[in-house]
């Protein structure tokens, strides 16, 4: 189980309805169902992963978040979760808008490209960074729109959504991101976790 799942679970209120976009093998879904008693659905693009979810008794539809979120009416879910996949979409802006249409709130996690390891990699090696959480080469990475924690905060200003809560994951510990500490969190954070809603 990924380190951030506990923190995502902490954000989500009990007995709410949740859509996990890109639910992978359903680990988070199972965790939330068990600990938060949520009514949870998933969308997953990989047939194999969908099969794994079905075997776990999870309600999942095979689909692509960029194309298939539009079938859900406005405010279908209390929360929509997008875990570490925003950077893989062709148009993250549309995806964010869709998340906030389908969900009353959205929880978005991003691998932080502003992390010092990433910065050092590029600085010293002069090649595109490869780390344990970003293991791909530049030519085969699915992550075509990497961003930093700072980028995401600026993104919220440009496309006009509200960040209700922002957390940084550093060495399995979680801490709040604020205006005053964002430089540090952006340098050491491995992952940014954002609870967002429409303004």
């Amino acid at each position, binding site marked *: 189980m990924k380190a951030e799942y506990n923190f995502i679970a902490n954000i989500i209120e009990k007995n709410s309805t949740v859509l996990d976009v890109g639910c992978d093998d359903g680990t988070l879904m199972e965790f939330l169902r068990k600990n938060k008693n949520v009514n949870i*659905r998933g969308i997953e693009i990989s*047939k194999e992963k*969908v*099969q794994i979810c*079905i*075997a*776990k*008794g*999870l*309600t*999942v*539809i*095979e*689909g692509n978040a960029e194309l298939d979120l539009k*079938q*859900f*009416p406005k405010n*279908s879910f209390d929360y929509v979760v997008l875990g570490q996949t925003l950077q893989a979409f062709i148009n993250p802006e549309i995806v964010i808008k869709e998340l906030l249409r389908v969900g009353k709130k959205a929880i978005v996690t991003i691998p932080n490209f502003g992390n010092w390891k990433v910065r050092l990699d590029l600085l010293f090696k002069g090649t595109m960074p490869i780390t344990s959480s970003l293991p791909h080469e530049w030519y085969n990475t699915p992550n075509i729109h990497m961003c930093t924690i700072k980028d995401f905060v600026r993104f919220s200003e440009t496309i006009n959504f509200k960040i209700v809560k922002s957390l940084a994951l550093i060495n399995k510990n979680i801490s709040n991101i604020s205006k005053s500490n964002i430089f540090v969190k952006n340098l050491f954070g491995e992952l940014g976790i954002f609870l967002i809603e429409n303004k």
Partner: protein
Amino acid sequence: MNIRENIKTLIIEKPLKLDCGQTISKFPLAYETYGKLNENKDNAILVFHALTGDQFVTGVNPITKKDGWWSYAVGPKKSIDTDKYFVICANVIGGCMGSFGPSHKNPETKKIYGTDFPVITINDMVNAQVNLLDFFNIKKLFSVVGGSMGGMQVLQFVSNFPDKAKTAVPIACTSSHSAQNIAFNELGRQAITADHNWMDGKYNSKNTLPDKGLAVARMAAHITYLSKKGLQEKFGRKLQERDDLKFGFDADFQIESYLRYQGSVFVDRFDANSYLYITRAMDYFDLVKQFNGNLSNAFKKTKTKFFIMSFTSDWLYPTQENKDIVIALNAIGANVGFVEIESDKGHDSFLLEVPDFLNALKNFLDKSFLESNDES
């Protein structure tokens, strides 16, 4: 047709008003069951058969002496596990395996109905079959499952009886028969009615059978059940028991011989008029229109949990048409799962050994059954 003492039949006393306007009553509904109904009567699965299926889902069909049409999926420890579930399947009305159909005698005229039989619809079929629940004293089915026309019946059943099934599995189907679907069915019907022996549907009383026409109908339909890739891989241009082309119209190619065989065995077990009636029922199926253009409204009243499956190489009921059902369900916040199964076996995939499909079906049913037991 021969005497069929192996067929269980329920006589439906209650009048049934058909979509065509006629009312039928005291009509036979032939059915078969597998497994045992548990004490709580909450482990029953109603399986709906496709166009040419019948109530003999699994094991040896006592009439044809061949394996039941869904032997891969239904049986002990299989996807629909008869050690666990009580499986019921009825022959659709209009069919020819014991249920009220065009080969039956009209009690008033004492003549075989033929084309005087009322035109029936998918709606009529499920309205007839719901009587089985009363007969077995089942308040709520654990599941309704079916592929192709069976899937259409699943959709219609849940729409008609929103609180009579906990789960529903429509497979490789559609909510509305497409122009292409209708076109292929019409081709089949024309083949039958063009056969001189069809005799305006009165072949039974004239001791003939429109075998040629029915066989051609089956051959044409059979092609639509397979994929181009599947056909190419299985047959290619392979020749049938010969080293060279014979420059004639015999079956030179294996695919020709295969289709002729499929046609010839089909006529032994299927009634030509039933073929006309059932294909007509499929063509008339339009759940979207029934709900004034909004499919979601068909399912507004139901809490049934859906699981929909389609197949990559199915061009008869393609993935998009199955997805349209998913979309309609999501639009009203219904509980629906969906997966498209990778298979090059075409529409027929749901009848064949396709492990991803069989596993998904089993996992969905077994997990849902556990879940529903936890709740109760």
